Structure formats: structure tokens, C-alpha cells
């Protein structure tokens, strides 16, 4: 046992950092090669946000009230849309087996995949939010809070989503099942995320909401990779 470990340890510096890097680099490269898929999901986000002002009254106060909530719901849906991609293709082509059998720690490899998912779906959502918020006539400070809340909240969506995506591997109709599993879990994120802007508009400080979101992010960061890794192993059995 120790002999084998020593041999491998001298052969390669394997650890958490290398594992995360492997998964991030690979998944980002794959995402860049299939940009159309990313574009579809981003366009979906933009269209959903833009539909609400068209479908409801153009009254300025109403739009300003519902703006942050609409952006958050659209961000949640857009992030869900890309979740099936997270593990399903690796599962289908056998890569997930190789990932699970790698000497690297599986939670680290899974974390890398989640980071790549957030970089390709979460970051564009955050970057576009201020632009989309303009359609609702949101004031700059409120736009700022919405964007900050999304910056903290979207990684939570990716982390929670990864658990759902791994749990539904190999299940027929897994895509819609992921939504059913993950949406209820995302309710607190939605409440505090959208609530931050509400508090700001009511003249209060948004810091309580932001702190709670950040606390949620820390918990998800610690727990989700392990839960996802366990779910992946179950799916492969």
C-alpha cells in the first residue's frame, strides 16, 4: 500500500489543485468548441427577461418593482437549462468512468467541472444583468446590488445544480427531473438574491441579504462537491 502510494507520489504531483485545473481546462475547451450551445442558453436568458416588460404593463414603478425578481428567475432557468450538459455527455461516452477511476480526488475533479459550468453560464448571466436591468428602469445602485447578488448567487445555482445533475444520471427524462429536484433547493437563493434589491429600494441596507447569500455560498462550496462525487459514484454502479 505505502509502496504504491510512494511510487505514484514521486511520479506525479497529484492533488486537489491539479485535479481542479484538469477539469476546468478540459470543460472550458469543450464549451468553447460548442459555443452555439452556450449562445442558445444565454439568448434564452435575454429573451425571458425581455418578455416580461412586453407582456405586462409598461408602467415604470411596476417594472422597477418586478425587475430584480424577473432577472433572478430568468438566471435560475438559464442555469438549469445547461445542467444536463454538466455530466450527461461524460456519462454517455465513458469519460465519467475514467474520471471516477482517476487517482485524483473525485470531489476535486467534480469541483473543477462546476467551476467551468459557472464560468460558462454564471459569469455571462452576471455580466448581462446590468444591461437587462436597464429595460426595467432600475437605478444604478439597484443594478449594482442585483449584479452583486447574482455574482454570489449564481455559483450556488451551479453547485446545487451539480448535485441534481449527478443524481439524475442515467434516468430517463433526467433533464426535467433535474429541474424538479433543484428548483425547490434554489428557493432560498432566489429569496435572498431578489430580496437584496428590494431592501435597497425600500431604503434599507442590502448587506443582510448579501451576507446570507455569501454564507449560503460557503456552505454549498464545502458540501456540494462531496455530495456530487457521491452521486456520481452511485450513478456508475
Amino acid at each position, binding site marked *: 500500500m505505502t509502496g504504491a502510494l510512494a511510487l505514484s507520489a514521486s511520479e506525479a504531483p497529484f492533488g486537489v489543485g491539479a485535479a481542479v485545473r484538469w477539469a476546468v481546462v478540459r470543460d472550458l475547451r469543450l464549451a468553447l468548441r460548442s459555443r452555439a450551445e452556450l449562445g442558445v442558453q444565454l439568448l434564452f436568458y435575454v429573451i425571458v427577461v425581455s418578455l416580461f416588460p412586453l407582456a405586462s404593463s409598461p408602467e415604470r414603478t411596476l417594472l422597477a418593482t418586478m425587475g430584480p425578481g424577473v432577472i433572478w428567475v430568468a438566471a435560475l432557468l438559464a442555469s438549469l437549462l445547461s445542467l444536463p450538459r454538466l455530466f450527461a455527455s461524460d456519462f454517455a461516452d465513458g469519460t465519467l468512468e475514467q474520471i471516477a477511476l482517476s487517482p485524483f480526488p473525485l470531489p476535486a475533479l467534480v469541483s473543477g467541472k462546476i467551476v467551468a459550468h459557472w464560468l460558462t453560464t454564471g459569469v455571462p448571466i452576471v455580466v448581462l444583468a446590468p444591461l437587462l436591468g436597464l429595460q426595467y428602469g432600475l437605478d444604478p445602485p439597484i443594478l449594482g446590488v442585483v449584479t452583486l447578488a447574482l455574482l454570489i448567487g449564481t455559483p450556488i445555482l451551479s453547485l446545487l445544480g451539480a448535485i441534481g445533475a449527478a443524481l439524475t444520471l442515467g434516468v430517463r427524462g433526467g433533464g426535467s427531473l433535474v429541474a424538479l429536484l433543484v428548483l425547490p433547493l434554489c428557493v432560498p437563493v432566489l429569496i435572498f438574491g431578489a430580496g437584496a434589491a428590494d431592501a435597497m429600494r425600500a431604503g434599507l441596507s442590502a448587506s443582510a441579504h448579501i451576507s446570507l447569500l455569501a454564507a449560503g455560498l460557503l456552505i454549498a462550496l464545502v458540501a456540494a462537491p462531496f455530495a456530487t462525487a457521491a452521486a456520481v459514484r452511485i450513478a*456508475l454502479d
Partner: protein
Amino acid sequence: MLEAQDLTARRGAATLFTGLAFRVDAGRALIITGANGTGKTTLLRILAGLTMPAEGNVRWRGDPVAPFSQQLREDAVFVGHAPALKDELTAEENLRALVDLTATHRSAAEVSAALTSVALDAQRKLPARVLSQGQRRRIGLARLGLSRRPLWLLDEPATALDSAGLGLLTQMIAQQLATGGTVIAATHHALDLPAERVATLALS
């Protein structure tokens, strides 16, 4: 040395095999044969640590190994049914990613030499999408050649390979055995290996 004791596997309600026991020493190969559905893949997945046997256990170097044990993940290379290739990546990128995933350091020169050795030199920069099944299998062979792990677990490694590819596979297995490695392969193809090093296990 890999040892199986009283292995029983079930898939759903069906029992695939019961009380299976064997031992494969270093430098030896075990060829698993059997009709479709007799549990060849399940047996290999159990040995690789992907699937839990219904009963019995697997010992590697004398220690019992549970599924996903660190020791097995460091010592074994598993080539499954699915080639684990990404259509969007080139042959070289695919091989690089698979080799890096095994936490073994191989230089770019070694990776490209491995592709040359399986006659994929010209296809190096082509996306895996346009490669034939046999060429995809050859990337798996190149990976085996780069892995330098003591235990090889191969599930139908000869599928879709032409006679040159089959020769290459045989040669690689022979090399692995000669250097004290262990090979367990499920295959329908007759591999031309030194008879004294090979045992056959027929599942039924």
C-alpha cells in the same frame, strides 16, 4: 497480483455468476470469454472498482479493495466499452486529457510518439468526431501504452480493430506481461500471446 474470492454478481433479478474465484499473478493474463450477457463486463467493472459485487471480494496485492479504493485507482487502468473520447477534441487533445487524468506526467513528445506508434500520426489534429471506430480504439491503445500501470483491465479491446491494430494490441499486452504487469481482458478475439502466461476463464 489480483485475486477474486467467491464473487457473485447480479444485474436486476438475474444472477450472472456465483462463487467465482481466480488468481492472476504478476506477468500473467486472464482472458475472459463467454456469450453475450454472461457478465464479462460486470466482472471487469467489479475488478476495476466501479461496481460492488453482490457477494465476495477482490484482493489486489493481498489487500481487499473496495470500490473506488485509492490503491486500485493508482494501479489499474480500465478501458471500457465506451472509448471516453470527446468528439469536439482532437485525437491528441483527447489522449492528453486521458493521460493527464491518470496523474502521470508525459511530455508532449511522448504523447505524439504514442499516437505515431498506433498509426494515428496523420489524424493527430483531427477532431475525434471524424475518426473511425477503429481509429478511436487506437487512441485507447496509445493511452494504454502511456499508462505504465501494473494492472490492465480491458473490456473488448479488440472490437473494431483491423488486423494491424489487433497485432498492436497483442504486442502491447505481451510487453505488459513481459515487464511483470497483469492483464485481464474480456474478448472474443483470439490473441496470439505466449501460452504459458495466459489463462482463460469461460463464463456461462
